[in-house]
């Protein structure tokens, strides 16, 4: 039986083998039928690589994304909020795990993916390199960041790679509470004391643009998007999703009684798209390149957790090995 690591070792040959040609034909047929590719199927090496990169980035984002919110667990201003926040950050660990296990089916084990994250070789969503400075950020992260993530993720439930789609279905179902709890934090603050309302507006001001950038570069600057759409991984372009999101939040912000820091938001009747002010893409690439306010801090904390846990993981493995040996002798 061809295991995933074997399949992962298949390099692109100069001359495709008969097996590869048959595999490609079968793969193309599945994609054309909008059916699903499953782990044991033959798949083009680039498809495997693209998915491994995208899915592991997604998993890393969940894991790193725990940090800005986890910072506020100990300071949450009510016990109910503390419980909700804990449950949410814990969900993110769960979502990271679902995504890592889906990625592993492509042949790269989790510890390798984790090494890629810690060495800086793998990326994660830039939004988590911004600091969570005040409590209202818990609201803005839930409403805008999780909102943008959900807008991105809902179409991924139909991604052509079976394990990815299934993981996304589970994640989307669980995340529905994340956005709502964030919105309600802001709603409570917006209707609270003047200081609370200001806190809420400040958070929205800081997270608005980075949240819009979560959809990725503009379509003209997103060369890989075309291929991902052809493979039915991606279903809508970055700009389409971003526009749809702007349309949603410009309406929702009215309920909050707050404003979005963008006076160029308008609906374009001709294109049917929501338009927004120019985003600072230079900043986006700077943060992506590791120069965001929190890149170093986030990475250090992840490495620290991993390194501090090494003796625990080793102990559990040693204990399991001992037990297995005893069972064999008995």
């Amino acid at each position, binding site marked *: 039986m061809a295991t995933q690591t074997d399949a992962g070792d298949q390099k692109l040959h100069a001359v495709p083998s008969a097996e590869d040609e048959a595999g490609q034909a079968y793969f193309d047929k599945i994609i054309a039928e909008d059916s699903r590719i499953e782990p044991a199927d033959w798949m083009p090496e680039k498809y495997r690589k693209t998915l491994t990169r995208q899915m592991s980035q997604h998993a890393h984002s969940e894991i790193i994304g725990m940090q800005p919110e986890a910072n506020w667990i100990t300071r949450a201003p009510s*016990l109910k909020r503390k419980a909700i926040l804990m449950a949410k950050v814990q969900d993110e660990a769960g979502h990271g795990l679902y995504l890592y296990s889906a990625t592993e089916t492509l042949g790269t084990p989790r510890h390798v993916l984790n090494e890629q994250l810690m060495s800086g070789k793998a990326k994660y969503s830039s939004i988590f390199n911004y600091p969570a400075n005040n409590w209202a950020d818990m609201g803005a992260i839930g409403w805008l960041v999780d909102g943008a993530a959900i807008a991105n993720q809902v179409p991924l439930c139909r991604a052509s790679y079976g394990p990815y789609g299934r993981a996304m279905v589970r994640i989307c179902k669980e995340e529905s509470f994340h956005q709502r709890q964030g919105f309600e934090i802001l709603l409570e603050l917006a209707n609270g004391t003047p200081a609370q309302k200001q806190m809420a507006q400040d958070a929205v001001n800081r997270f608005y643009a980075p949240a819009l950038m979560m959809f990725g570069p503009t379509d003209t600057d997103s060369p890989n998007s075309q291929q991902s759409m052809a493979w039915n991984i991606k279903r809508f372009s970055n700009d389409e999703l971003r526009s749809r999101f702007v349309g949603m939040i410009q309406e929702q912000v009215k309920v909050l009684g707050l404003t979005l820091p963008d006076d160029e938001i308008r609906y374009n009747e001709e294109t049917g798209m929501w338009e927004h002010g120019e985003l600072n893409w230079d900043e986006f690439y700077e943060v992506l390149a590791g120069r965001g306010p929190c890149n170093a801090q986030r990475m250090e904390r992840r490495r620290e*957790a991993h390194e501090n846990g090494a003796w625990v993981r*080793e102990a559990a493995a040693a204990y399991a090995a001992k037990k297995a040996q005893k069972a064999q002798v008995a």
Partner: protein
Amino acid sequence: MSGESATRITPGNALRPEDIAQQVTEGNKASEDVADYALRLGDDALILAQRLGWWISRAPELEEDVALGNIALDQIGHARSFLTYAGSAWGKSEDDLAYWRGESEFRSSYLVEQPNGDFGRTIARQLVIAAYQHELYSRLVDSQDETLAAIAAKAVKEVDYHRDHAEQWTVRLGDGTEESHRRIAAGFTSVWPYVQQLFEDDDLIDRLDGIAVRPSELRASFDAYIAAVFAEATLEVPDVQPAMTDKTRVKHSEHLGYLLAEMQVLAREHPGATW
């Protein structure tokens, strides 16, 4: 809702803090003594949850982030129920009690106030507190106070899992590698001076006969349980003296002040605000 809540506070139902609050508004108020007792239970759960919450995003493996998160969530649930009920005696909410009391008004034990340390120390603290809470809640379900009994009925099932979690790790760390054995043993040594306080009776307990569980009566089964786990984990009960603590729980370790400063800072910056 009000019609339902009367039946909700019975052992066996998944009791929520909101249900207790509902009962309180309907006139189910704790006496001053019962409230003082509920504070002890609630504060232990709250301070422990506050400690455990720190681990989420820092655990040795992602699966453990989720596991410790679950335990912290259970504890905060228990804390909210106990504090809501305690507050009924003084017209205070769970948040009034959690965020607006000073150090000397807390009734937590030294044990839960101890810092997390490494994973070994956290697990050592977990095994002790979970074993104690398990003995306690499995008796509190028979309390003459129906609300305490109902909270305990929900809590005992959850604490059963916490105890199992700590036990699994104690055994693996104790009988794992040399390093893990050394670390978990050190963890138990560091928390052991604070075990005795959990099992001390005082006047309040005397006054609440039939309502409160007498802590001293839990010690024998606690010791038997610990001995069994330690035997499997190749650990010894630490040879350390109990620390001078306070059976009335008015006095605290130095650690509590820092913990409260962090926990209460935001709420106290905004008096009267809702969140």
